[in-house]
């Protein structure tokens, strides 16, 4: 299982990376963490003639919390986000989602930008971007543009990125306040496997104990990560309860379209999605201080 030959280039700057990508076009693939790409090369399911290694572009490796904005350079490793202490209490959904990406050894190397650009429908990062008002910066020969999270993910392994663009930064809004709770729940055959279905849930309660704001995202149940506005509408304004969560779970139905594969049929994944929505909302509400 050895990769086919390729030309290897290692830019030292973002500008250089952009030029190289523009120069080689479709013959080239960007190498970030490699945890998704290199297996494809090993199976020869992908044989690019040029590999542009972004691991030398130090200017893409940064991570900081500016107030309520989490600013992440594209080459930030999953593990660095996971180890950011402030996130543990402020946003369990983010931490729990990231900690479900494979295993520590994978997270040491895999990158946030790489995960977003790869856009696997079962990946956790796209759903976190949708849940947390994420914005993604893409840089190309004509400069940088900001793509709102909800416009970034198109379909399987396809994003709004132009072929000559590189993800450079992603920004998330980390919720704050005493009555905010969140979680990320996933069901997979084994720890670290791709999710059969996964749900990120965030609930913010008002002073009266009703749901002021909610986010419900799902992975593994469509051709891309989903944010369920239907479920969120059911939740907004209502007091948390098991019945409410069940209603919200039913509401996701038309917004998901799972496929069948060797690990689960579409029917089963649809069922799991709803079970997880109920459970995730209950846990998020409990953490918010509600029921």
């Amino acid at each position, binding site marked *: *299982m*050895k*990769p*086919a*030959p*390729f*030309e*290897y280039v*290692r830019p030292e700057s973002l500008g250089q990376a952009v030029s190289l990508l523009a120069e080689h076009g479709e013959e080239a693939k960007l190498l970030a963490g*490699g*945890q998704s790409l*290199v*297996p494809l*090369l*090993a*199976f020869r399911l992908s044989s690019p*003639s040029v*590999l542009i*290694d972004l*691991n030398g572009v130090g200017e893409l490796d940064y991570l900081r919390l500016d107030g309520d904005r989490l600013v992440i350079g594209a080459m930030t490793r999953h*593990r660095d986000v996971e180890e950011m202490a402030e996130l543990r209490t402020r946003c369990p959904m983010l931490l729990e989602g990231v900690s479900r990406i*494979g*295993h*520590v*050894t*994978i997270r*040491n*190397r895999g990158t946030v930008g790489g995960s977003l650009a790869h856009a696997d429908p079962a990946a956790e990062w796209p759903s976190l971007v949708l849940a947390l008002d994420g914005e993604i910066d893409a840089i190309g020969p004509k400069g940088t543009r900001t793509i709102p999270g909800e416009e970034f993910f198109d379909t399987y392994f396809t994003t709004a990125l132009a072929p000559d663009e590189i993800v450079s930064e992603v920004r998330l809004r980390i919720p704050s306040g005493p009555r905010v709770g969140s979680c990320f729940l996933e069901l997979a055959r*084994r*720890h*670290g496997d791709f999710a059969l279905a996964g749900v990120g849930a965030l609930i913010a309660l008002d002073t009266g104990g009703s749901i002021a704001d909610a986010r419900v995202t799902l992975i593994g149940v469509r051709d891309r990560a989903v944010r369920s506005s239907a479920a969120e509408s059911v939740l907004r304004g209502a007091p948390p309860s098991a019945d409410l969560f069940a209603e919200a779970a039913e509401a996701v139905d038309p917004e998901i379209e799972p496929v069948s594969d060797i690990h689960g049929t579409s029917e089963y994944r649809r069922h799991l999605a709803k079970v997880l929505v109920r459970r995730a909302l209950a846990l998020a509400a409990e953490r918010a201080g509600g029921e």
Partner: protein
Amino acid sequence: MSERRPITLRVNGRELSGSAEARMTLADFLRDELGLTGTHLGCEHGVCGACTVLMDGRSIRSCLMFAVQAEGHELTTVEGLAGPDGSLSPVQEAFSVNHALQCGFCTPGFLIAVTEYLAEGAPEVDDEDALRARLSGNLCRCTGYQNIVAAVRDAAERVRRSS
């Protein structure tokens, strides 16, 4: 495309050189160019963990990296875990004492992953589920993991006692 280039890596504290095409994985380079065959290939697609080495103190799958990428970094392989006098590291000793290996093929990967875990302070070492989840990135077909869990706890204890 297929030209071999000279590659020098810092492995286990020494500078070692070989030559390889860009597409040669770090695992193959360590094994075939540098003669460090302690790092094993179990799947070549990043799942089994047998190829795990440390790069700058962090565990990585050497089958998912190319040798050229490792230039300028500090690598540690299983051959580098014992002391210069040959004394076994606490992890190596604990694995042997606890019979945490049978065929030994997956063992180098586990030793490296557990070395990293211990360097982090062995978080949640007494939580059975959390510890097993941490170990679930390395596959073993022989031991049923039971003695590996015991060895990790033993190693953590040894490190605690000596510090």
